[in-house]
């Protein structure tokens, strides 16, 4: 049964009909067979382009299989695009690892490509992707303020990991930052903390449409408004020293007793600001990378985010859907809470000091 969502694919027979030739002629012409006059070939090529015919890779593969007894010369490739070095960023690395494993499982070759200074710009990237016959891309964790991307989106099946501050509108995947903040806030409240502050990067907020902020604002409605604390947004691409210099005065000024922060080094950042954890201030990390008894917080499944990104991309490729999504859906993977020394129960601390 035809659905309105899936346009029937334009086939070689459609080209033949509109060009007024037999479909085998079209096939030969598109392969530049010498038996087809150049003028006919050009006419057919123009017609194919006009009505949007592209060879169907599935049937291409099958034909290849029939002739050669093997399907795949090289596995089809998809690109994983980043605009900064991911080696130094454990959460970006976890996305990538999940994506790579899933691609391997599904038989795709996933290539990590950097779109940043000294690497590809949009123009050379488009050329490269075309040359490599790559039609599926994952725009993974593009950071606001760094290199941007401008491709002819219609040529690609697209999935994003975060990167919501930039075009195109596309299916996106991430960890559930809003729910993460909500869980962390409630856990801190249950431990007796009352002045809970949120400190996150501006880049992380812009690229997620303020999902940490959203979680914080809604949880805050459950407490008295004299304990509402303005959130701290780090500037774009801050250094650790800059963050420490901001976080110390913010904690002191607002008499914060618990900090929620998405940097995994939050404990060290507070220490660098001259604050003792948990004596002066407690903290919970919103994006823990590895089991660490010293730090309480949210343990997201970033691997799963990468896995889902590839699954969504390959299902788009399979269905032949390309370009900007009219209604791009977003998928968020839930995380779990992890206890740690940085956020003890407050009553216990009081009992010890008394």
């Amino acid at each position, binding site marked *: 049964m035809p659905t309105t969502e899936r346009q029937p694919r334009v086939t070689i027979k459609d080209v033949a009909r509109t060009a007024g030739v037999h479909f085998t002629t079209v096939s030969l012409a598109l392969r530049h067979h010498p038996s087809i006059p150049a003028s006919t070939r050009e006419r057919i090529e123009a017609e194919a382009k006009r009505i949007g015919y592209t060879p169907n890779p599935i049937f291409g593969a*099958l034909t290849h299989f029939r002739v050669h007894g093997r399907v795949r010369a090289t596995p089809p490739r998809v690109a994983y695009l980043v605009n900064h070095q991911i080696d130094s960023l454990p959460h970006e690395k976890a996305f990538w690892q999940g994506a790579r494993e899933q691609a391997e499982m599904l038989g795709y070759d996933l290539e990590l490509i950097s779109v940043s200074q000294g690497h590809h710009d949009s123009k050379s990237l488009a050329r490269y992707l075309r040359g490599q016959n790559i039609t599926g891309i994952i725009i993974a964790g593009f950071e606001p303020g760094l290199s941007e991307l401008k491709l002819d989106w219609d040529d690609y099946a697209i999935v994003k990991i975060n990167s919501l501050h930039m075009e195109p509108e596309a299916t996106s995947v991430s960890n559930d930052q809003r729910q993460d903040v909500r869980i962390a806030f409630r856990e801190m409240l249950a431990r007796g903390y009352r002045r809970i502050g949120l400190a996150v990067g501006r880049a992380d907020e812009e690229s997620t449409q303020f999902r940490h902020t959203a979680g914080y604002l809604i949880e805050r409605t459950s407490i008295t408004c004299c304990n509402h604390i303005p959130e701290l947004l780090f500037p774009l691409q801050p250094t650790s020293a800059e963050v420490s210099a901001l976080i110390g005065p913010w904690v002191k000024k607002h008499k914060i007793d618990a900090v929620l922060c998405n940097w995994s080094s939050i404990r060290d950042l507070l220490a660098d600001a001259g604050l003792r954890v948990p004596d002066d201030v407690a903290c919970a990390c919103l994006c823990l990378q590895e089991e660490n008894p010293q730090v309480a917080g949210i343990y997201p499944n970033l691997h799963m985010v990468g896995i889902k990104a590839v699954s969504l991309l390959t299902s788009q490729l399979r269905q032949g859907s390309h370009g900007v999504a009219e209604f791009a*859906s977003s998928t968020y993977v839930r995380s779990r809470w992890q206890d740690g020394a940085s956020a003890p129960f407050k009553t216990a601390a009081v009992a010890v000091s008394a």
Partner: protein
Amino acid sequence: MNRRTNIGLKKYPTMNDVAAAVGVHATTVSLALRSHPSIPLATRTRILNAVREIGYIRDPMLDAFNYHRCCMHTSKQSPSIAFVADANSSPFFGGLSYHPLVYEGVRAVADPQHLSLEVFSLGTNGLTPSRLNTILTSRGITGILLSTFTQKTKDLELDWGNFSAVKIESHHLLPQIDVVSNDQCQAARLCMRKLRQLGYRRIGLATALDDESRLQDNFSTGLLVEQAEMPADEGVPPLLFKRTDVTEIAAHLAAWVKDQKVDVIMTNWSEFFRQAAWSTAEGIRLPTSPPLHIPRDVAFASLDAPTDRPQVAGIVQNHRLVGMRAMEHLDVLVKTYQRGAPSNPSGTYVPGYWRDGETVPRKATRR
């Protein structure tokens, strides 16, 4: 290059090679790779090791072809998907226990793949969860879509380990499994931005408390995020009401509009004007005393603009697309044997879009 040189070259490894190496049948390899529950873990591990050693990888081209083929031909035995609805929710969907547009979207994905759908309405004709469990098990149905459930149904006791399931909307319903829903937070945010563009400054959100807990407070969250960007004196506190008699709610609504100087009501409730007809002269009259006229006294933007009321401006929710996404997601879970509650459940949100209407005229600029 001479084509003939290819002949005689070793072909790339297939499932048969893996099967031969491990000493099992090729179909066992296939099942093991899809984590089928009938294959013991030890066997699966052995097979996966052999897969890695031999270098077998799935062929995405054949996979795509298979998908294509499944859409072209009816299989002899078409698997069923259970569409489980909640009889409690029927008052919200005009007597049906599910949203007709959601169901239509589900069908749009299921039909081309020849998946048949069976609707089960819990709570009618003595259909209890345990009875449902028996029916599904005996019919070999493993895929379940849980349609919009009301707050009254807190959890559903089935042998979840035997089923792949996706929830539609009902975030509150236990167990915690993957859920697909309209993006209510985006709906509220987009609606507020449109209203501000149209000149409104006192935007009031009115919604039912139980809607909010069912939908993870998403309307309020959207409101708060937008209010954070607005001048502080323009933030109207939302009206969160208990689900009682419509006239009683309307009375609260009228008082709140007056006290807070609300210039536009933003709500997911259409019940306010279900009975009242649209008249060109006076718009809609809300059943309050004194009556509140829309849009003369206050403008009205719906967060779930009804299709049968084109005068009503607001956000049109993509219920059909929600159904489609849910069915697509379930299909993957069923085919990869992902049964039971996942350790990290996910939520998928489908955005809505703005629709102009007479209930929200452009506001004359104050000067």
